[in-house]
């Protein structure tokens, strides 16, 4: 076995056992949810050289009873386990009725794709939270609607999009 292979094997063992790590490094991990479903996530290496807890990313698959992403909700419990999604409203759209939707957590835009039909929408991961930009004539997932931007700054910052699905 070459030195490189030995090093790779040692690192593999170290990383997968949750041993020492280089501060700043990240690695994927998985969470097991109540009911047996799993959710992918990531963990980061802290300054003490230990891996952090696993932090969920993306929507949960198979979480029993949970509303799909971007469905309207009125309580956190409707969105499934805490790691799966939050029930909340977006602060950047005009939403006088106070509609709320289930939205998940993310690292990249690809984590935020809706799981139910929608047209004219573009998933975005905004500071770790999923949302759907909606264009004119868009059909938002489930019972959510395309709500207009709340400020002119957001209109300018998001050309081609009317607002967010909420």
């Amino acid at each position, binding site marked *: 076995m070459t030195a490189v292979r030995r090093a790779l094997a040692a690192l593999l063992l170290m990383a997968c056992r949750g041993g020492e790590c280089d501060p700043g490094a990240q690695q994927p991990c998985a969470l097991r949810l109540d009911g047996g479903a799993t959710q992918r996530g990531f963990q980061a290496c802290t300054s003490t050289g230990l891996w952090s807890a696993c932090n969920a990313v993306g929507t949960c698959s198979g979480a029993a009873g949970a509303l799909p992403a971007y469905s309207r909700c009125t309580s956190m419990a409707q969105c499934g386990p805490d790691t799966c999604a939050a029930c909340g409203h977006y602060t*950047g759209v005009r939403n006088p009725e106070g509609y709320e939707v289930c939205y998940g957590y993310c690292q990249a835009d690809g984590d935020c*794709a809706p799981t139910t039909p929608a047209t004219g929408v573009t998933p975005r991961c905004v*500071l770790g*939270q999923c949302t759907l930009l909606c264009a004119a004539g868009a059909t938002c997932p489930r019972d959510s609607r395309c709500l207009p931007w709340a400020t002119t700054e957001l209109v300018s910052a998001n050309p081609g999009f009317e607002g967010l699905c909420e």
Partner: protein
Amino acid sequence: MMLAARRRSALLAATLAACGCGAKTGLLVPDVYQPPDGPDADVMDVADVLDVPEAEVPRCRPGTFPLTERAADILLVLDRSGSMNQSLNGRGGTSKWRLLRDALAATLPRVEARVRVGALFFPEDGAESRLAACAFANIPSVDVTLASGTTPQVIGVFDNTGTGGGTPTAAALLRGYTYLVRNPDRTRARYIVLATDGAPNCNGALDPSTCVCGGPGGGGGRGCGSDANRCLDDQRAVSTITQIATNAVTAMPVFVIGLADHTDSTFATTLRRMAVAGGRPNRATGVPTYYDVQRPDELTAALTTIQNEVARCTFVAPSRPTNPDAITLTVNGAPVPRDPTRVNGWDWTDMGFGELTLFGTACPRDTATNTATATVGCD
């Protein structure tokens, strides 16, 4: 050593990618979505039972209503870097770290009467090694979690850890924000209060030969030798605060308290820009836009002002008009105009929750409790 560390990191990343300890997503997202086959379809079927009845959604109701103060959370993001061990303006005496500790010990018990407080210190404890000096992962973890009566825990971190390492301000703010959004509480307004000496660094992507040196001993001069992590990282710090304060998903105001060295204008300039970006600058006349602290009593005054704005001048309207201007406000019996510039007057700060905030002179400082009423019209 750094090169070896980078090689180790690269090797680790390659190893992990190969071993598949978890899954990675690189989904290409089409413009039109179709429901996937399999388990997700089952989830959708179950969820149909939980659909929200339309009748439960609150509607605009015309009339005059008393407003209630909105409960608030403050996450303190506190600078523990090596430069905080120095005294203000190099005059000797009490360190900025000790100054911050003593002022928080005196002020937090009063703040806690109205708001929950948590704290995140940066860099991480034990960040003395060169490799760890700037490491600050974006994970939802803080030193003191949000709760009532956390003063002993916050002060305990001061007493049990010391200063050292770099100033990863942008990364710390992101971590604090991530903690807040991953621990949501729909009933409470969330605020971040950053206290720092104004020398953010720890950006390995900067060019150390041309940057402004912002690390300990850098003195704001040009060039940091070969160490990019000592470069002043003002652009990223300001950009991060702007994103936190203005993003469309969960905007969160950032107050900036500066323990700035007045002998170096670079740091004060950075603090001013950060304070404006955070959306809640100090509006008092004749002072910087950040809450400038040179003495313990100034820190106490800054925290009191912030507490007033957060806890005594942020209200929830029980009825939200469809037209954001179809509402008039009185505070303690006097009419208050809407001011979207947020200098003097009220403005919607989270209309989806019916939250509005009084700014500047509209936020009375000399009353223990403000009484606010709103008259709402509906189209």
